[in-house]
Structures are given as C-alpha cells and as structure tokens.
C-alpha cells in the first residue's frame, strides 16, 4: 500500500508535487488567517484597531487585553473577567468527561463480551440518543433538573452532558472492543479473573487509543457547548462559552475588540491544548478498529 503510493508520488513529478504543496500551503494559510487576526489584535491597544488596520502587527505590543479579559472585564453586570467562568467550565467538563468515558467503556465491555438477550436493541437505543437534536430535550431536561433541584448549577450541566455523552462513548468503546479477541476474555475467565478484574487488568490497559479519541471528542463537545450552558446555567454557574457571549454583548461604552479577541482565544485554548497534546493519538485511535496489526 505505502509502496504503491510512493510510486505514484514519484511519477507525479516535481512540478506536480510543487503544485500540490503550494495548494496545501494556501489552504493552511487561509484557515490560519482568522486565528492570526485574533492573535495580533488581542496584543494591540484598542486605538490601533479602531485606527483601521486589522492585519498589521501591533506597533505597541501589550498583554493588557489578555489580563483584562481574564480578570477585570465586565461580564454581564460584574467586572469579574472570564476567570470564574473558566473554572466553571473546568468543573463541568472534567467530571462529565470522566464519568462518560468510564460508563462508555463499561457499556462497550458488556455489550461485546457479556452479551445478553436484547443487547443489540439496547445498543441501538443508545446510538439513537446520539442523534436526538439538542433543542428537543431542552424542556423535559429543564423539568428534570428542577425536580432534582440542580437547575442553574454546574452539577446540573454535568448531568446533561453525561446523558448526552454516554451514547457516543458507548459507540466508540463497543466498536473498539468488538475487535478485541474474545479468547483473551475466556483465558482470563479460566485464570479466575472476575468481571471487573478482566475489565481493569485485560481490556482497559489495551484501550489507550480509543480512550484518547473518546476524551477528545467529549472534551471539545462539552467545552464548546453553548445551548445547554445558556439554557440551564446562565448566572454565576455559566460556562466559559456563555460568559464569552456576555463579555462581547455587555460592553456598554466602547467595544473593546482587543479584549474580545483575547477572551475568544482564552475560551478556545483548552480544546486547542487537548488536540496538540493528544491529537496524534486521535487518528491512530480512529483507525484502530478497522486496520489490524
């Protein structure tokens, strides 16, 4: 396979390859341009932006907009900066991702290695939950959060995201474990390992790639969610995305674009970080089920 594609690459020739790389470079620049503009403008004093030149590098480099966005900018009525909401998001994302991943892995294990009557139906229903549009569940969810007395809290948001995330997490792990040799489970059974021992000692240690995929997927989705955050936790418990919106909308006097840019980058930073740290495992994990060896 790789030999064949190398042959192809060689036969395309120098001109063709230059063309391919140029095109790729062009698109990369195109996609990076917005980020570049955000970055340079977040490092300028406001005057330079309103002065008109958005593309130019800052004449006066400053990190004041970043400090302002983080700790002093007006969010709604309070001048708190994004800081408390950033921690809100962390307190929401981390438990939700951990709980979803654990339950998803356990579900995948049971659905592939401890099959029971009707297991495909159960899995089908879980899959179905992945495709229910968010808007449909807003009202029933609000009602349930009310009954549980956790509406408007981070705990409530964790619950919402766990409910939504389990479907995908289960899908990932089930497909991954389906390719995991059942003979290993049988060998472990004969060796005397119990249900959880087989899970912890045999399956989990081999689940690195799919766990990375699952965590990245859940982390980005939950971190970037706006609808649930705005609907169920708009006050002090609001997540970062909602706070960013409030930051941009609540500037009464002049619009501090440089602060807005800095805030937007702050809001995107954790997902960016997750991709950079774990991203190279991402593709590997996605491929793991389909290509053996």
């Amino acid at each position, binding site marked *: 396979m790789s030999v064949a594609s190398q042959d192809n690459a060689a036969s395309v020739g120098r001109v063709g390859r230059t063309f391919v790389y140029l095109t790729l470079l062009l698109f990369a620049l195109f996609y990076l341009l917005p980020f570049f503009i955000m970055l340079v403008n977040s490092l300028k004093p406001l005057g330079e932006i309103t002065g008109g030149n958005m593309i130019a590098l800052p004449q006066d480099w400053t990190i004041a907009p970043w400090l302002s966005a983080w700790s002093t900018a007006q969010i709604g009525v309070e001048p708190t900066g994004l800081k408390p909401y950033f921690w809100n998001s962390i307190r929401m994302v981390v438990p939700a991702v951990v709980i979803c991943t654990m339950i998803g892995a356990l579900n995948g294990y049971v659905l592939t290695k401890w099959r029971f009557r009707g297991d495909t139906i159960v899995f089908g229903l879980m899959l179905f939950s992945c495709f229910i549009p968010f808007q449909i569940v807003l009202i029933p969810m609000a009602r349930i959060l009310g009954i549980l007395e956790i509406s408007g809290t981070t705990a409530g948001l964790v619950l919402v995201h766990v409910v939504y995330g389990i479907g995908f997490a289960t899908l990932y792990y089930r497909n991954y474990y389906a390719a995991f040799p059942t003979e*290993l489970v*049988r*060998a472990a*059974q004969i*060796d005397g*390992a119990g249900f959880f021992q087989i899970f912890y*000692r045999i399956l989990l*240690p081999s689940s690195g790639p799919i766990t990375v995929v699952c965590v990245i997927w859940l982390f980005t989705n939950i971190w970037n969610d706006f609808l649930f955050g705005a609907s169920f936790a708009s006050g002090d418990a609001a997540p970062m995305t909602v706070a960013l919106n409030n930051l941009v909308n609540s500037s009464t006097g002049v619009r501090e674009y440089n602060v807005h840019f800095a805030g937007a980058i702050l809001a995107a930073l954790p997902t960016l970080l997750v991709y950079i740290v774990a991203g190279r495992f991402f593709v590997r994990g996605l491929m793991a089920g389909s290509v053996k060896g």
Partner: protein
Amino acid sequence: MGFLDINNVTKSYGAVEVLHKVDINVEEGEFLVLVGPSGCGKSTLLNMIAGLEGITSGEISIKDRVMNGVHPSKRNIAMVFQSYALYPNMSVGKNITFGLEMHGTPKEEREKALKDVASLLQIDHLLDRKPGQLSGGQRQRVAMGRALVRDPDVFLFDEPLSNLDAKLRVDMRTEIKKLHQNLKTTVVYVTHDQIEAMTLSTRIAVMYDGYVQQLGTPKEIYDTPENVFVATFMGSPAMNVMPATVEMIEGAPHAKISDSEGNHVTLAFAQDNLADWAGKEILLGIRPEAITDPEAADRDSNRIEKLANRVGVTEPSGADTFVTMTLGGKDIIARMRADTTVAAGEMFDFAVNMEKAVAFDPKTEARIKP
C-alpha cells in the same frame, strides 16, 4: 466412571442442535484427541468441558464432580487457545502467573512456579518481554507455560499448533507428546489434522456433523474404521473406497471389481462372514499401503492377493512412490517402495493385503463387522 466423563451431552444454539448426545469417558492420564472437519463441533465440546459454553442437556464431570454450571476457574482445568490468547499488556512472566495471582497464590510460590515452568519450557530468557515481541513458536511455549503452571486436572488444547509453520508444528508436536509422557496429566486436544491426532493420542474421537463417529485407539481407528467417513478422513493419502460385488468362489467370499481394462478381477477376502453378502454390492476399502509391489508385501499377512492392473501415474515422494490407477471405476492410490520398477502405462502385478481390507454397507456406509 472415568476421570473426565462426558455423558449424553448435547448442545443447541436456539433451535439448531450442533452436538448430539456425545458420550466419552476419559481415563486419568489419557491423551484424547477430538478430530474432525471444520464446523463439526470440536471447539464447542471443548468449551463445554472448560465451562465457557453452557451445556444444553447431559452431564460433564471431572473426578466424579459434576461440572454443569461450575465456573471455568473452579474446574481446575487449563486451556491453550488457537490464537494463544496471551494478554498483550503483560510481560511473559505476568502472563504465566496471572492465573495463580487470581487464585490468591502467595508471591513467593508464584515466583517459584514460574521458575520451574520457565526452565521446563526453556523460556527463562523471555520472561520480561511482551507477547508482541515473541515469535510464533515462543508464544506457543508461553501459552503452554500458562497452562502448566496451574498444575490442572485436565489440559484442554484447541488447535494449538495450527498457527505455526509446517516444520515448527512437527517439532512442537513432539514436544507436547514428551511433555505428556513426563507429566501424565489428562489431555483433551482438538485438531482437524489427522496426523496430529494419530501421533499424539492415546485415544481418538472422530467427529462429524455433531456426532462422534468413532471413539478408539489410533490403531482401532486406522485399521477398523466404523464407517466410510472415518476411513477416508483418517490417513494420508486417504483410504481407497470402491464399489465391489461379493462373489463366492470355492466357498470363500471374494470381491469382484472391474480393473483398468474393464475386466472383472476377484480378490479373496480374509473376512469370512462376508459370505452373507454373496451376490450383493458392498464398498471395498483398502489403504494405499496395503497395495504394494510383491517384494514389499507384509510377510505376516495370511492373505496377499495378486492384482494385475495398468499403472496410471507414478509420483515418487522420496520415501515412497505413489502409484495411481483405475480400479472399480475409481482412481486408486497404491504406496510402493521408493525404488520400485513400475512405469506409467504398463501392466504391473500388485500385491494386495486383503487382511487389511474393510467392507462397508453401501446403504448405511457402516463397516460390515466380522
């Protein structure tokens, strides 16, 4: 009551019965081989002994203890899988001692058991490696080590050699046999390779389509197959089976067959009760090595018959020369000496050892017993 008793065991998946009333008693120290073509239910039966598959009806007991419903880890059995099923995340040493750890054996004892098994199998130098860093033969040894370390009542093997190349397979086969001779542990071994079955076993159960076709020692299976399936499945090349008619000549039953020229030839049976079949059709079974050149014929046999026939193809294989000819309308293989003088297309006087010939009822395909 044997050591391992399989009494009237059946297995169904839904409405499909894949094993029908299997009845096998295994004595302590026996090496029982389950052999048969793909899909005949060998693995299913083995998994039922291991407790990995439920028993639909009947009873399996080990050492007089009924095992139905007993968890696999509580049966004191060990199993070697076709894919070896080594835990990929654990070192070789951990793989071998995992079962002991799960059974709560103290660490010092585990270390000692590991040492013993590792030196027995000559894998001392591999203990820190991961299974992914081993060759096929080494993995095979580790898998056996994992089974040995438990000191089980019964070893179960599911086609343990089928992933190895031809040469290594022969070596490991010898090694398994040696191991069994030293340890004398009871073994149930699944294979679809009839040579493995013949060389390793003390007894063989030939299975087909969910039925045990015949249970017996390798010699019984080879010399007196119960039916045409067993006769043709065991042995390589397969037993020659051809239609024949029983004819009485001077009061003795003979097999009347048409030779390569379309003429009738007769071969005197060594089996007297075939007189009851006089004038009727039978299926005559003769193993290739029972058709030879006269110099190589079995001197102990009381019934060597001469057969003049035209040689079809000769295939020298080094140790022997295989000769194909037409007999009874079928292609028949004879096993001759390596330096035999036969030449393709010529007539040759073959010697047929009729003491080794078997007759089958053409309707039921069962052997007509003496």
